[in-house]
């Protein structure tokens, strides 16, 4: 199994390689260090969330609330930092408080979703559709319909979290890589990853195999919430603001990336590295369209749609052939 080249596994990789070749042919700046850094950094938000989403979908769940949740957490993080600025002053301490607030809010939000789904036994689709609306409204309300902006003195302190880095690699890329590698190890090697797949495959059998189904499901939502917090920590320093237009449709991008990567939407099988490829495919499409002339910007959505469907067809056909 391992030795034989599984062409189904190669599907998303082939799509990614094809995109990179197309991009390089169309524009000489495509493979420049600057552009690669830009694309990878901006992929980090969706990427970090999508890794968490892989576990939720693998265990047979779904979370539509992550985009609104990110917007709400971003708003909260800005309010907390602005509120404590007079006491703590602009500095590392205040950044740490902001980070802590984001992680805590994310965990709590994930717990609320998980509690309603596992303990109250409400469909994940309905619960997260509800919380999606709640968080979106809350951030609009917090911002009074406008935009929440981080105090100017604080921005220069926090900016390096998005724009800085070590050895020329920016922090969002490093964090995204760490989250992805950890996710891959947990999915492949840890009991939790196998339990998530078992629950998503058949929760009755999993229950008889003494897997604590509710606990596994709950944890997938809590981890996803935590990762939304992490993504927000990367997001806020970029523009220092949050509004009701923050994180719109992130949930669908994350879900699309997960499915492009080969995770099954009905659960039972997940592939974290595939998700990473899926995220990169989605970012590259946007990037290539911006770098290219001759395609009407009105058609960007159509081209994205075609490539997403092609990437998935590629997998299915290989599967039938092998």
């Amino acid at each position, binding site marked *: 199994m391992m030795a034989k080249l599984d062409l189904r596994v190669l599907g998303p990789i082939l799509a990614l390689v094809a995109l990179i070749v197309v991009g390089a042919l169309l*524009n000489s700046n495509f493979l420049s260090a*600057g552009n690669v850094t*830009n694309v990878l950094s901006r992929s980090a938000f969706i990427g970090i969330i999508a890794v968490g989403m892989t576990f939720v979908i693998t265990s047979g769940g779904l979370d539509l609330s992550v985009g609104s949740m990110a917007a709400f957490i971003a708003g909260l993080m800005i309010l907390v930092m602005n509120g404590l600025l007079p006491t703590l002053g602009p500095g590392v301490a205040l950044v740490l408080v902001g980070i802590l607030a984001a992680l805590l809010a994310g965990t709590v939000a994930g717990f609320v979703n998980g509690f309603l789904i596992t303990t109250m036994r409400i469909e994940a689709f309905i619960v997260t559709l509800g919380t999606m609306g709640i968080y979106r409204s809350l951030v609009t309300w917090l911002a009074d319909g*406008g935009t929440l902006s981080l105090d100017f003195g604080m921005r220069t302190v926090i900016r390096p979290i998005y724009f800085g880095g070590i050895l020329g690699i920016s922090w969002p890329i490093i964090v995204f890589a760490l989250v992805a590698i950890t996710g891959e190890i947990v999915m492949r090697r840890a009991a939790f990853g196998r339990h998530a797949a078992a629950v998503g495959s058949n929760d009755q059998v999993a229950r008889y195999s003494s897997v604590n189904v509710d606990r596994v499901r709950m944890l997938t939502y809590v981890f996803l919430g935590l990762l939304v917090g992490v993504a927000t920590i990367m997001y806020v320093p970029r523009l220092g603001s949050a509004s*009701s*237009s923050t994180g719109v449709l992130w949930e669908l991008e994350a879900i699309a990336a997960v499915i492009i990567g080969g995770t099954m939407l009905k659960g039972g099988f997940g592939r974290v590295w595939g998700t990473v490829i899926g995220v990169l495919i989605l970012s590259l499409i946007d*990037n290539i369209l*911006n*770098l290219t002339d001759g395609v009407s910007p009105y058609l960007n959505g159509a081209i994205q749609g075609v490539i997403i469907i092609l990437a998935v067809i590629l997998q299915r056909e290989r599967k039938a052939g092998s």
Partner: protein
Amino acid sequence: MKHLALATLMAATALPALAQDTKVIGVSIPAATHGWAGGMNFHAQEAVDRLEEVYPELDFVLATASDPSKQVNDIEDMLATRNISALVVLPFESEPLTSPVKAVADSGAWVTVVDRGLAQEGIEDLYVAGDNPGFGRVSGEYMVSALPEGGKIVALRGIPTTIDNERVEGFQAAIEGSGIEILDMEHGNWNRDDSFTVMQDFLSKHPELDAVWASDDDMAIGVLAAIEAAGRDDIQFVLGGAGMKEMIKRTADGDTMIPANVTYPPSMIATAIEMTAVGLTSTAPVAGTFTIGSVLVTQDNAMEFYYPDSPF
């Protein structure tokens, strides 16, 4: 269902008696989905609060809709259950809103349309219009005056709509023959994040640029962040638009990257509500078209357009 119908019927028959004392003005606007709409919501709410005190005989119903079909429902509900004497509507989109607004006009109520016109002429009694071709033209004329030798620019567009098309056409007409060349145009959707991403890619693609027409202040913020992160100093300035308070402040303070702005005031909703209230309570004529022009803001006049309390 039967009860609901009965209740609606009762409400509909009971209200006219009440309406002799108080007239109800319905206000239907899009929800605060981006900065400008947020400012518009703020001014609508403020105008309603203020006018309710000024005119005790008027009652206001304010509804915000996140998409055109929700707005249609809002307007149908206002007509069916609140017996409105006047409707102030900022249509989400022209086509889908035309027939529901026409139904309100046919019922005999006063109709004020704001910003976006309806697909069919002659429905509204009062049209408070923003000047989108003018917005583009004023922006283009500023570009020409700021780059007298011509130059290379990129432009960011809003959400694909008639508004955006009219602005871009006005802009293109104004710069024609000036030697200013638009190298690239993409949709930044009046969104900071989207425009940041688009601008990063424009910067990778074009090694030499003279200026950016961001066409909106939210997009200008994204553009400025991308330029700053890339450390590019070839770009002389970024022209936004719509008059966000932070950007107006920077223009007033003499920031060379933001030397000007072009207004498209979200407070035009307040003008519309106020004029409708005047029309309902007095004999002063307010029917017709009232166009709110787009004005060029520079350092000299910036403080006249600075509203620190507004969210936008």
